């Protein structure tokens, strides 16, 4: 076999790219365009702004609009207030923060805010533990869980690690020589911080803040569980599920939500443009660390313990709730029991299995798509290859509710081949929604892994007689294994706790995954115990999965820890 190589790409590459593009068109672009189209369409098919006008005429809608904006903005503000000092302490001072930061970073991934929301109400609510104690001892209450406050509080506590992690990474990427040369040129103290450290750390902060904003906007479960319905995501859900799939207001809300997500992404891209300092600088050592003075140590650790207690309170609360017999108007549950776990063991093996199935399939699809896209983009000269990345990443800006509405509308009446079932009532659509929504994470992971791999490693294989396919199989995939696995884990974990699209796409009890089950349980006071037990089960499963895959990655990484390839220069 002698193939010619004068073309810029091969037929196989083009065919794969086309297949991926088709998939993304069908399950992301078309449904979203459909949503946008319906929001602007007359009954006779013409374009109109009438639906938007009606939207703003309804006072509940105006209220929801502002509420969503306020909640997302204030959540970013409070998350920043928690994250900034923590990041500064870890990076600047000699103290054992690394482990803490890592732990904090994983927490929001393994337990989504809606799971902990009920527990937060029991702890911080009007008649929750904290306020009962405060009322008894000091005679006042903190209204942190009242209405929108509750949503903001829960979201900020759950999502601040996104800001923290990004900030710490960019601070660590600052070479100490940059700081030293600034000092050498006469800058110090606050001026040094303002002119060097802050600008260099800015990209990380902005990226994290934008992520939090989008996440909060997207979150449907938390407001629903806290019984706050005057926000955009709950309104979209309620409109579509109660008024019906034809109701244009649901689509208007969807378009507004996409608009806000896009705005956040656009604003962060604008700030970040040309400022991607995160490129690895060889031999960086991070900012110079200082030893804390004793009183500073006390303050630093005090702050951290306070934050930790707050951050862990939903987790502790859920654990208490899952073992608690009755917990209401009391600081702690009255007595403890295993009954809730028994209930869950009877009711929900099916849900556990469903979660495993959907998320396993979705994460597998994600890493296949992610690896293929990364390869096409970084290693071929296929025309328009960047557009694959763009399409896949577009999913970041699409709230789960919106994607689900798009699916329900686009695939309305579509029959599954060989089965007597509608696509819209099948679990396949849930799985596909997970795949599309988590693809950006898997893709980033795969791209990073491939970028770290020097292209000469592949060329050497071709030089020794391995074709492109053989090279991918023997060199590319094994060397990327760590990154691919990390992508799988992230996709799996985050899909396992997805609720926004799940709520809308789950049509039969039998097809419900765990996240849906938890949500259902949490709806009734009697279900809280079993709901918490199921939540604990979910956290344990996800945490165990994470732990084992990290061990796997670490042991693989240990035996391939390559001497970093030197830059080729004469």
């Amino acid at each position, binding site marked *: 076999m*002698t193939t010619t190589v004068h073309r810029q790409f091969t037929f196989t590459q083009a065919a794969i790219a086309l297949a991926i593009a088709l998939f993304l068109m069908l399950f992301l672009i078309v449904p979203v365009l459909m949503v946008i189209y319906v929001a602007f369409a007359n009954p006779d098919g013409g374009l109109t702004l009438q639906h938007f006008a009606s939207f703003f005429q309804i006072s509940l809608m105006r209220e929801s609009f502002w509420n969503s904006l306020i909640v997302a903005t204030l959540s970013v503000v409070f998350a920043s207030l928690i994250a900034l000092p923590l990041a500064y302490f870890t990076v600047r001072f000699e103290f054992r923060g690394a482990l803490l930061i890592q732990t904090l970073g994983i927490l929001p991934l393994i337990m989504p805010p809606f799971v902990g929301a009920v527990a937060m109400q029991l702890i911080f609510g009007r008649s929750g533990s904290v306020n009962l104690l405060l009322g008894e001892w000091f005679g006042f209450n903190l209204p942190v869980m009242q209405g929108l406050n509750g949503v903001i509080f829960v979201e900020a506590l759950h999502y601040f690690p996104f800001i923290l992690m990004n900030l710490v990474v960019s601070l660590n990427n600052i070479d100490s020589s940059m700081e030293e040369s600034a000092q050498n040129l006469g800058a110090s103290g606050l001026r040094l911080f303002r002119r060097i450290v802050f600008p260099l750390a800015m990209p990380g902060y902005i990226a994290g803040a934008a992520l939090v904003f989008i996440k909060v906007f997207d979150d449907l479960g938390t407001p629903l569980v806290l019984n706050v319905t005057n926000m955009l995501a709950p309104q979209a859900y309620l409109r579509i599920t109660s008024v019906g799939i034809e109701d244009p207001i649901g689509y208007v809300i969807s378009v507004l939500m996409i608009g806000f997500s896009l705005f956040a992404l656009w604003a962060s891209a604008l700030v970040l443009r040309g400022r991607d300092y995160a490129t690895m600088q060889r031999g960086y050592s991070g900012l110079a660390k200082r030893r804390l003075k004793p009183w500073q140590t006390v303050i630093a650790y005090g702050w951290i313990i306070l934050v930790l207690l707050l951050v862990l309170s939903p987790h502790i609360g859920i654990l208490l709730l899952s073992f608690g017999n009755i917990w209401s108007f009391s600081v702690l549950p009255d007595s403890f029991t295993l009954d809730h776990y028994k209930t869950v063991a009877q009711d929900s093996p099916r849900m556990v299995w469903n979660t495993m199935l959907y998320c396993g399939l979705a994460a597998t699809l994600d890493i296949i798509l992610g690896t293929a896209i990364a390869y096409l983009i970084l290693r071929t000269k296929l025309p328009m290859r960047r557009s694959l990345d763009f399409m896949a990443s577009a999913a970041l800006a699409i709230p789960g509710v919106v994607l689900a509405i798009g699916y329900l509308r686009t695939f309305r009446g579509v029959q599954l081949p060989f089965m007597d079932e509608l696509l819209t009532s099948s679990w396949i659509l849930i799985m596909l929604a997970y795949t599309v929504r988590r693809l950006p994470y898997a893709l980033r992971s795969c791209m990073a892994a491939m970028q770290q791999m020097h292209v000469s490693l592949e060329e*050497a*294989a071709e030089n020794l*007689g*391995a074709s492109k396919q053989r090279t991918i199989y023997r060199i590319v995939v094994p060397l990327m*294994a760590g990154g691919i696995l990390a992508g799988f884990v992230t996709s799996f974990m985050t899909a396992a706790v997805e609720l926004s699209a799940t709520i809308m796409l789950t049509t039969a009890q039998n097809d419900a995954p765990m996240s849906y089950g938890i949500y259902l349980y949490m709806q009734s006071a009697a279900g809280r115990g079993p709901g918490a037990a199921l939540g604990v089960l979910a956290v344990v499963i996800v945490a165990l999965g994470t732990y084992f895959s990290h061990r796997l990655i670490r042991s693989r990484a240990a035996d391939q820890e390559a001497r970093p390839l030197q830059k080729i220069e004469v």
Partner: protein
Amino acid sequence: MDPLRKVRVNISNVSMSYGQTPVLRDVSVNIEPGEFFALLGPSGSGKSTLLRLIAGFNQSQSGTIAIDDEDISRVPPWHRNIGMVFQNYALWPHMTVNENVAFGLVERRLPRVTITRKVAAALELVGLQEYGERRPNQLSGGQQQRVAVARTIAIEPKVLLLDEPLSNLDAKLRVHMRTELLALQRKLGITTIFVTHDQEEALSISDRVAVLDQGVIQQVGTPMELYDNPVNRFIANFVGTINLLPGEVRGGFFDSPDIGKFRLPAAIAVNDGKIEIAFRPHTLTLSSPDRSTGPIQLPGTVSEREFLGEFVRYRVKVGTAEIVADQPHLGGVPDFLPGHAVTVSIDPAQVRLFTA
């Protein structure tokens, strides 16, 4: 390992550009069977590009590359059987040394026993038979380089391409490894193209050298030809050290703005016009002004003196020019200190002229 069949490599009229930037311009070189051939040139001159073209990782816009008169321009890299050792070695970190070396043999679907035998033979050839079970990151730089070589020769390639194979080694190892590479090449008889930017490296071990500058082959020849008869001032400057004096010939006299006017001996007389005269430092003789003889004599003053063991390197100020003169460090050869007035004698037989 048995000696391989020796092949000829013909590169004809190859031009290539990245976008609008031309990188190789009408390059033609013939490499003889079994030759150790060096591609020498400054950084960015297009050496790697030419090598990757031969290996099949780049495609030229025009020209052909033939091995034993068979055009390989359209053959994909994995069917070329041209072994390349990468500058960064490109050892796969997820494979042991044995697995790295076996890679190409596995791709050729050889029986397991043959693979084991050939891997052992290749590792023995580079003196690493004990290291098969190690991972690349457990080896020193020099050992990694040997593994890269073993991995490449294990497939018994028709041609061996080496892209700056020594540049990542420290100075001492570099000198050692280059003689080792040459010995290995002689043993296998494999046609080898060796890329380097280090003229000493190229001159010391190659049969012939092609000097590349800005994508153009300036001269091809044996190391001595390049050194003794550089075809232009670039080669003269790049290969070895040389003194270059620009000026003008008029009526048998050379007139230099830097050092004034002197009569050119009949042996090197040329037509009137702008030229540059060139002469190597070691062909000059320094003497006290009162003792000088010879056809070309330039009065000057020693400005710097470097003792290098075998010889002393002087910088002599002549007019406004500075001339480098190497004098052997032998009994009877006078020593001059900075500030001394000296006469620089140039042997006409050793002078090269470049028309500007």
